[in-house]
């Protein structure tokens, strides 16, 4: 599946909900399915700055595809990362670099995308893309 396909799926899933509470409950559920980062990678270096909650992300290249694992100490943040990881993990670095994030807006989480918000969703996306750029350079 391409990133766009996965994003379309996520948008479909979220369109079933009528109100924010259902959306948040679903997001919290998704948080529980997040592929957790190995404890040994929960280092200061892997913490994404700009989050009020702690967020760790680790990236590894497998068969030229980037695999993300992550964790957070706040569950809503974890749900947001789970959505991002689902959309971006197991994709080529090039596809990740080129991907847009409009689906966040479509699933009603736009408020989390504001650069001034202390949850660091923007820093999170930036970090995923940075990993992709770094690995793309390696592949070249």
């Amino acid at each position, binding site marked *: 599946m391409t990133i766009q396909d996965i994003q379309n799926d996520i948008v479909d899933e979220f369109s079933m909900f009528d109100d924010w509470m259902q959306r*948040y409950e679903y997001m919290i559920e998704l948080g529980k399915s997040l592929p957790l980062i190995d404890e040994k990678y929960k280092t200061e270096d892997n913490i994404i700055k700009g989050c009020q909650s702690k967020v760790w992300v680790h990236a590894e290249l497998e068969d030229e595809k980037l695999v993300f694992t992550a964790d957070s*100490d706040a569950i809503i943040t974890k749900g947001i990362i789970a959505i991002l990881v689902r959309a971006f993990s197991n994709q080529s670095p090039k596809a990740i670099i080129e991907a847009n994030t409009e689906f966040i807006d479509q699933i009603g989480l736009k408020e989390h995308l504001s650069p001034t918000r202390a949850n660091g969703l923007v820093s999170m996306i930036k970090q995923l893309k940075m990993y992709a750029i770094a690995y793309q350079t390696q592949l070249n």
Partner: protein
Amino acid sequence: MINIDKIREDFPILKRKVNGHPLVYFDNAATSQTPQQVIDCIVDYYSNYNANIHRGVHTLSQEATDKYEQARIKIQRHFNAKHSHEMIFTSGTTHGTNLVAHGFTAILKEGDELIVSAVEHHSNIVPWQMLCERTGAVLCVLPIDDHGELIMREYDKLLSEKTKLVFCNHISNALGVVNPIEEIIEKAHKVGAAVLIDGAQATAHIKPDVQELDVDFYVASAHKMCGPTGVGVLYGKEEWLEKLPPYQGGGEMIAEVSFEKTTYAGLPHKFEAGTPNICGGIAFGAAIDYMNNIGFDNIKAYEDELLHYGTEKMSQIEGLRIYGNSKNKASLISFNIEGIHPYDIGTIVDKLGIAVRTGHHCAQPVMDFFKIPGTVRASFAFYNTKEEIDALVEAVKKAKMMLS
């Protein structure tokens, strides 16, 4: 007595809806809301007499200068300072603290000691750390106990003839505990040390009397007491302000300038370089008038009632822990629910129209002490109601249900 309905009418923002719910504003410790009287004052300034102050011969400049200086006198009377020139207009509490810390660079020497309390806001830690770096002075920390109260017997041990400065907040922003500043000041003076009290949190609840406290420096911000942002006050005893060198150079703070030598203006202008926040200063005066019209005794009695009501209601939520359990406390509840991150609670209650603050509240050492990443802080003002507290309790319960 507080006429709560009448007071709420004064605050246009309280009619707002947030996320489809009536706004419940419980982030007063971060910034207070602005009554119409203060908004009118700001509009009046820009509509009728906006001009640069001091030395202008034209009418508008005279009017603006008069109003600005009248505001200084209002602030002086409010804090009961001896002279109006002891009230220095600043951009806020942080500015005032930095001004004093800068001034002490020339006074301190290597090996001198400063005492800081463990419940300080970063703005009352970092300027002093920078001062220590510049001078070789040493920063000593006055610890707190599990209730968030300062351990005063440790203070006695820290004080010595080496102590030159002590700084402490009047009320802790992270926990709401009222610190025993009278004792802190008295004991510091016995060893010849000066004291700076950070009144950022206190001035919304208490009317400090700087002469009775005998405090050397007291700093505060207008925006925590119904005034605008970007303006505050530094009170300093005349003899201290005379001793400290100017903080910034520029217009307004000089007597005579030549390329060979510049002489500085007297107090308070020596510390007020450049065009100040004229409108802000005048509106600060209006905010002080507004609060005094309601009366600080009334404000305190009403807020105490809210605090007791809130504490009782919140304590009934299972797994909820309140940080800062001192009997002497401002109307603020800093809490966590077991197993739930404060950020998650803040996000959910915001969805229900309730504004609280989450995080370390710029007091990381306090959070480290309790070994927590942060807290949720609900801070009440005299325009809040018990019904709003009920809404918070329901919202927190809902958040707990969703997040557990």
